[in-house]
């Protein structure tokens, strides 16, 4: 990412994506269970669980990529001395992307074992 694209918005973009995903996860689960509840006997092996897990993996990979771009994609390295404020934002943004990815993975773990609508 170049300096221009490393606006402070990157500080919160990761958590914003996490939040939006969480809202969709909870809302989507409620709607799916209202209109197309799978048989509880199926356990965690339902299309709903698959969609949740797949979306989580995709998003987490995307967030880790964004984190990598923050630290390695620009012309100036993280440790550059040209602008401490920019370096700070760079480091913080990168970390926030990783934290958001970890949050998504953590929240997905119950989908591996629990039926969605019980």
């Amino acid at each position, binding site marked *: 990412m170049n300096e221009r694209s490393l606006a*402070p918005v990157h*500080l*919160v973009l990761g*958590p*914003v994506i*996490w*939040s939006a995903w*969480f809202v969709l*996860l*909870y*809302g989507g*689960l*409620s*709607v799916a*269970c*209202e*209109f197309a509840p799978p048989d509880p006997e199926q356990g965690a092996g339902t299309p709903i669980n698959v969609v949740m897990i797949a979306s989580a993996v995709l998003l987490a990979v995307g967030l880790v990529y964004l984190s990598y771009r923050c630290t390695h994609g620009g012309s100036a390295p993280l440790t550059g001395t040209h*602008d*401490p*404020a*920019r*370096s*700070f*934002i760079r*480091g*913080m943004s990168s*970390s*926030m992307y990783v*934290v958001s990815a970890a*949050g998504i993975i*953590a*929240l997905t*773990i*119950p*989908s591996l074992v*629990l*039926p*969605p*609508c*019980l």
Partner: protein
Amino acid sequence: MNEPSAWSGRNREEQMADVWGNLPGWGTLAAVNHTSVGLRFMATGLLFFLVGGLLAMLMRTQLALPEQTIVEPDLYSQLFTMHGTVMMFLFAIPVLEGVAMYLIPKMIGTRDLVFPRLSALGYYCYVFGGLIVLSSLVLEVAPDSGWFMYTPLSSREYSPGPGSDFWLLGITFVEISAISAGVELVVSILRTRARGMSLNRMPIFCWYILAMALMIVFGFPPLILGSVLLELERAGGMVFFNTTGGGDPLLWQHLFWLFGHPEVYIIFLPAAGIVSTLIPVFARHPLVGYQWIVLAIVTMGFVSFGLWVHHMFTVGIPHLAQAFFSVASMLVAVPTAIQIFAWLATLWQGRVVFDLPMLWIVGFLVVFVCGGLTGVMLALVPFNWQVHDTHFVVAHLHYVLVGGMLFPLVAGFYYWLPHISGRMPSYQRGRWGFWLFFGGFNLTFLLMHLTGLLGMPRRVYTYESGLGWDWLNLLSSLGSFIMAIGVAVIIIDIFLHFRFGASATRNPWGADTLEWAIPMPVNSYNFLSMPEVSSRHPLWHTPELTDRISAGEYGLADARHGRREIYLSDAVNGHVSAIVPLPSNSWLPMVTAGALAIVCLGLLLKAYYVALAAALMSLTVILRWSWENGAHPAVAPGGDASPEEPHLHSRTSDGPGLWGMVVVLMSDGTLYVSLLFGWFYLWTAAPEWAVPDKQPISVALLVASGLLLTVATGLYQKAVSRLKGGCADRLGSLLWWVAGLATVHWVLLVLTIVMGSLKPQELAHDAVILVALLYLAIHSGLALIMTALQAARVRFGYVGEALPYEPIVIRPFWLYTLGVFWLTVAAFFLIPLVWTVA
């Protein structure tokens, strides 16, 4: 940097004091200065704390022994409702806002908050709203449904008296105060920091307050919406939470806890900010892991919005959904732990000076960690089910809130006391208050965990003997009285300190932040000249900074023009870009809040014409307020700044008002999204959701109205684009054209509502649509009025080619109004239509 001139020293100080000082006598009520307003918030909050504490003592007296009737059950319900309400809404949040309002400008090296009149408005809304809520106690009609006002218990059917109305209207009024403080703090922190104070050099306290303020901005609107809907249901008979007609009481719980859980962190974060500020000072060592802590603050701010359902684990939500919130509730312990380990590491690395504030910090660490651990226990669904609504939860929440907020707050009071009094607190006297409070607190609440585990439910006015709870309750009550004695000792100590405390030297604790570069007791303008910083610890790395500021060596040291001036700086790197002339003392905030209080009372007394008249009066006062803005001579006497300084912000297109507007719209948008949530929630989850046979309004008329709004918005964009490009030809007439188009749009919108066949008292479907349409009408009306006002200001020369400030500020409002209009059409009419066809 300014050259010291012959006109310096005492003359400068007197001039500065004249410009920044409050009016004498009763005129002090017109003060807008952040120091005065911040201190008033804190003093008023402490008075409410004493009231809330008194209510708690009454409850503990009643529960000390089994089967007592000192307090009757009805009164007991009022007591626990009002105790929670007062402590959460009238003490915890306002007092922390007061701390933030007082400290933030001083810490970031400026002279005031960026919207001083908003600060004062917030204060008066808080006072008047708080008095309205408290008056219900005096009138013996206090709310009694719990501080969370669950429906249907708080609905008209089960709470026919006015208690719930007092709560809903009074607390909504107080929330205006919180949101105004949130907006104020966000913009001030981001745009008015000292020259050179880049984000990475910002004091850690400012990060905490920034997060808190943003959380207020996003966290309070769901409750405001919920309160409005519930009041409409109670007073107007509309259907939102009543299952008959398609409502759902669980919607209230969602809206309440969407606010309620972040609120815990809104309270905790500033207190943690105090801890992060004090520990490095007393450890004589920079905070270990500054970046880690910033990371933890941001993470906590976001995760705290994902926990609300853990208050609703027993309402029948699917297990998997509960598991999501259970995991999220455990995740929030991670950023908390990061902070605790960073504090411990700082103490470990430093050479700790153990003074009075540190005593309270250690108390915080002990109590809060215990509360955090029981919090993780409560995040586990099966355990949560077991102890739900028992005294275990009461014990947990007091460990978190008192440990996480009150202990750091008292530490902070003692730490910053020299600022106000010019005197040092005494360790010898102060420790008595600490130990009494700490001992009493743990005696009360540690045992209460056990009472809860033994099955004693909360919110019961008495209990039978022989259930194993007798001795626990007696000791808890004893502990609460010891705690109360501790509070009394602290108050006496603070009063005594004003008389007997040793005189404080400048920067008495050896702190690193700019608030200690100010003379003590504090003055009205903070800094004689605006400081420049080159480090995160300015007073450690540049000790001579204090003298240079006082000598007027930095910017804006000359106040002979009579303006209250501060710098506007870049949000990231702290480069100064403009000068902001701030409004001086003003009665407008108090009059506005007074008019809003009459609106509130009018609604309470069902005197709707009085409420309407007061609403119009408050709108008129706000228009006057808006008139005296930007380049108006009342705010910016003396024309532009001197040539060696940057322009006044009204001459630029990047003033703080634009940022303020965007932050307000973020809050407004959250309210709208909460409404959308309510719509979709009721549609999918309400057990008796029903849709009328035919469309209750004319969608064609609505779309026609929307097309006019689109044209008006486009025209406004064109006017502003030309203005930013330096062309103000026919600006006034263009704005009048926009206002005219908006008027026709507004009339069509109102006709859509009036001519429709909405039955909001029978169907939740229609009630939500009506609220959505009223929301649109209010926004369109405001856009129209604001534009007409600016068109008039063009005529008076307050807006023009060289003064483009206000039209640029209003532009996002137009875009927002247009956006929510079409979103409403899509969500409330288009999607249901497509769904029905599909």
